[in-house]
């Protein structure tokens, strides 16, 4: 393997996830490809149901096995994760790649103490038990900002929401993973705690030079923490760019609409709200006859209905899936 | 054209083969026990001393017992009792349980808390004891009088129904159509009876169907112990067991009532489970 080939930490190519029930087939993720480099924070953005969570779950093979089928390639370094055996996958989970989820209350086992839940990871991956394990747990807890012996003996319901999420983060980072997948970790927290958790993640990321795949629907959060952003809609990538570029000059109508719909505090009176009209499409497994965003797109035109646009480069690392010429796209701040 | 929730549930039920089998079996059982003795002019109590302990034959399809009585007649007529008790006692449970649960769920707050605490605490207590006592004590005077049996057995089961109904009513209480009725000035009773309860009906049916087999089993316990009021399957099974011996087994005396009892109970449970799945496929209740 040449040096170039292993530049990326995570390499996803043509990932497709299809869920089949008795009634119908739904393609939740369609031919998604992207990379995450070491030490990079990549944001995965979109509405609920756009496929971002399913994408992230597929990386560790945590999606619904009974009804879901995954195709494509997910490489971590040189190792192919898709189709890897169960033991191989388990060696990666919690170890090289960790994941934290949206609701810290339900993500933690209510019947077990914190030290038991943290201890499992250490015992499993690092063979640490007893005093050595405790020392490491305490160290980790202070790194996430909640030092103290008594935290270890606590049960999840005895802690506040912010503290629980910190525990989840601590649990995820115990084995020094190269990649942290964060699935909307701040959505269920209130705003002040949100800021703290983001700050925590940022500092930890810098400290450990860890990569983060940050899934969210909140562009505000994206601007805080992500180096690069991938926008998903209807199971496909519609735009990809460095954060600053995306927020300043979006090149896809959906991204524009997302930016426009973010409530603003700097406009007197708050400004009016611009929701994106309509609903996301129902995703069948069939090929699309037109661009998925057409029904809701303010810039839709004739050509948009002639089949789905390709994802094309727009200079540098930028990608966009839209036939509207770049020159016509206005700046975000209108 | 979209189907109403009731129609959807019906469809799911009919697709459930096990439940349909249960329903058919149950219907056959009820019809058999009620109609056949009349049609075939069967007599459960007349004895034929010369024909005691006969194996099944053309004349006596199920054989005869120790006193030469026609077992087919006894099983069918006994079935009437068991089924009737099951139905009536369940009806008592339903009435008491629904009333209790509806009131608790409707008024909520402290009333609900107190009422449900009572239920929670009473849940683990053995009522059967009191039922047995009642039956024992009143056995002589109660011969032929079924009402105390219905009441006693019914009072054993109402707790579950009360809990379920209370849960449902509590949830429905907050819904808009109830608030609308209140605004229009409807009285509490009217709201409860005309608006809330019809929506709980389905759940009540499910649990009532599942309650009948428990009551039938309890009644069979009683008649097995000799405390029954009229001829029923439990009594017949105890008669069957009494004649088991290693030398000569009169297997038919035990088999037929056991079989009928088992089939009835199984079909009721199949049907009840099917109703529950049809009403609520995700199993939320």
């Amino acid at each position, binding site marked *: 393997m040449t040096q170039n080939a292993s530049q990326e930490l995570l390499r996803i190519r043509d990932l497709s996830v299809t869920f089949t029930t008795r009634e119908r087939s739904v393609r939740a993720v369609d031919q998604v490809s992207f990379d995450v480099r070491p030490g990079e924070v990549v944001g995965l953005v979109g509405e609920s149901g756009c496929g971002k969570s399913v994408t992230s779950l597929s990386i560790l093979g945590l999606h619904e096995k009974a009804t879901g089928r995954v195709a494509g390639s997910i490489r971590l370094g040189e190792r192919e994760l898709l189709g890897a055996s169960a033991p191989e996958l388990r060696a990666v989970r919690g170890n090289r790649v960790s994941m934290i989820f949206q609701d810290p209350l*339900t993500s933690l*086992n209510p019947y*077990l103490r914190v030290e038991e839940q943290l201890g499992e990871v250490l015992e499993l991956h690092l063979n640490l038990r007893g005093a050595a394990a405790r020392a490491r747990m305490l160290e980790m807890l202070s790194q996430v900002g909640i030092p103290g012996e008594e935290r270890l003996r606590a*049960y999840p319901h005895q802690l506040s929401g912010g503290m629980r999420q910190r525990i989840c983060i601590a649990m995820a980072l115990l084995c020094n993973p190269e990649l942290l997948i964060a699935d909307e970790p701040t959505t269920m927290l209130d705003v002040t705690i949100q800021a703290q958790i983001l700050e925590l993640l940022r500092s930890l990321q810098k400290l450990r030079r860890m990569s983060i795949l940050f899934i969210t629907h909140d562009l505000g959060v994206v601007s805080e923490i992500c180096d690069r952003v991938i926008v998903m809609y209807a199971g496909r990538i519609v735009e990809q760019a460095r954060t600053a570029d995306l927020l300043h000059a979006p090149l896809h109508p959906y991204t524009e609409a997302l930016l426009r719909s973010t409530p603003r505090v700097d406009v007197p009176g708050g400004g009016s709200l611009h929701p994106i009209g309509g609903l996301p499409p129902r995703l069948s497994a069939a090929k699309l006859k037109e661009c998925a965003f057409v029904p809701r797109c303010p810039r839709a035109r004739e050509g948009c209905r002639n089949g789905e646009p390709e994802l094309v480069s727009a200079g540098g690392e930028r990608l966009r899936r839209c036939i509207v010429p770049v020159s016509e796209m206005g700046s975000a701040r209108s | 054209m979209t189907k109403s929730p009731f129609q959807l549930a019906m469809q799911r039920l009919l697709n459930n083969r096990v439940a349909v089998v249960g329903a058919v079996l149950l219907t056959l059982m009820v019809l058999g026990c009620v109609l056949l003795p009349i049609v075939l002019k069967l007599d459960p109590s007349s004895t034929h001393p010369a024909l005691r302990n006969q194996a099944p034959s053309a004349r006596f399809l199920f054989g005869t017992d120790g006193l030469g009585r026609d077992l087919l007649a006894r099983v069918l007529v006994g079935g009437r009792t068991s089924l009737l008790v099951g139905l009536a006692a369940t009806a008592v449970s339903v009435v008491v349980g629904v009333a209790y649960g509806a009131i608790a769920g409707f008024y909520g707050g402290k009333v609900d808390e107190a009422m449900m605490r009572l239920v929670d*605490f009473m849940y*683990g207590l053995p009522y059967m004891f009191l039922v047995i006592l009642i039956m024992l004590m009143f056995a002589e005077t109660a011969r032929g009088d079924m009402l105390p049996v219905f009441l006693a057995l019914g009072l054993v089961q109402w707790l579950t129904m009360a809990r379920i109904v209370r849960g449902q009513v509590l949830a429905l209480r907050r819904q808009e159509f109830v608030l609308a009725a209140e605004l229009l000035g409807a009285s509490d009773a009217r709201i409860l009876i005309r608006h809330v309860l019809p929506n709980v009906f389905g759940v009540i049916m499910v649990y009532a169907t599942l309650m009948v087999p428990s009551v039938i089993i309890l009644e069979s316990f009683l008649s*097995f112990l000799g405390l029954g009021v009229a001829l029923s399957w439990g009594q017949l099974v105890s008669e069957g067991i009494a004649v088991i011996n290693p030398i000569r087994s009169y297997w038919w005396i035990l088999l037929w009532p*056991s079989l009928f009892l088992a089939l009835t109970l199984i079909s*009721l449970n199949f049907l009840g*489970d099917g109703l529950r799945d049809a009403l609520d496929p995700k199993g939320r209740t």
Partner: protein
Amino acid sequence: MIELAVLVLGIALLAATAWCPPRATRVFGALLFGLALGVVFRFALGVPVAVVGGVLGAALTFRFFPLLVLRRVLFLVPALVLLIYATTLLMYRAPGNPFANERATTPQVEAALRAQYGVPKSASAFFSIYMRRLLVEGTLGPSVKVQGRTVEELIGPAFPVSVALGSLALLLSVAIGLSLGIVAGLRRNTAVDHLSMLLALVGISLPNFVLGSAAMIVFSLWFRWLPVAGWGTLRHVIMPAFALALPNAAIIARLARGGMIEVLQQDYIRTARAKGLPESWVVVRHALRGTLMPVVSFLGPAAAATMTGSFVVEVLFAVPGMGQWFVKGAINRDYSVVLGTAIVYFGLVILFNLIVDLAYAWLDPRLRTTGAHD
């Protein structure tokens, strides 16, 4: 009529314990627990041990028991007293009395007998005599029908038999039910699952005496592996215990399966897998606790059901347990025997319910509020 009013009042008071504030609940609950403990100790171990045991019990429960459990004690101990009262009323309302069936008794003879045995004409009077005998003298009273014996002497030997049978049956129910249910839940919608649940459905639908008699025929008469009936060796225990256990096992299997399926859909199971835990760890360390909850909460009613079923099973397999004393006592209108067996049975079930509550609180840390600082 007054007696009925007292009964209703009693029930109302019981319901009112729901409103008792935490502090008071803790105090009174502990006191009642100590009292009950003392009375029980009195039977077996004499007065001094009873007093010490009672006080110690009260103190320990005050300090350590969860509030939920003390609430239940606060309800159940008076409930037991009320049950004794209700049973007494029932017996007195029924036709006949202990002295009626003897050879012709004159009113004077009857009055003398009544005085001797402490069975007055009024239910309430009997109740107070009985309670005084129970609490102060520590005895369940003389049997009216069996000359010269107290109730304790009569049911004493039968007690361990019933307890042994019942406990074994419950243990079997849990063991069989849990195993079946967990496996079915883990292998959802496979042949194993469908088969197990079918078996469970059949198990629920068959009364224990039908199962028992079938077993009797198959295992005793055809194969001659086990004795038909009776008690005394391990082989005598097997069939009655299984007959008693299977219906409950079936219910537990369904509960465990449902619990397992529900738990496996929880987020924290996903987290456990995301940590790389092998499936065995996920099931045993994480899923099992949640699966046990519905099973544990069923154990209270399961104990009551086992008790109910034991009457029939004891008769069927001629097991010399307490059931026969209860039935005999009721038929003969031997009030003390009936009450004695009733108290023992109720007491056992109540005790079991308390243990189950404690287990529930132990399993789910969210329910624990221990200590005196509620």
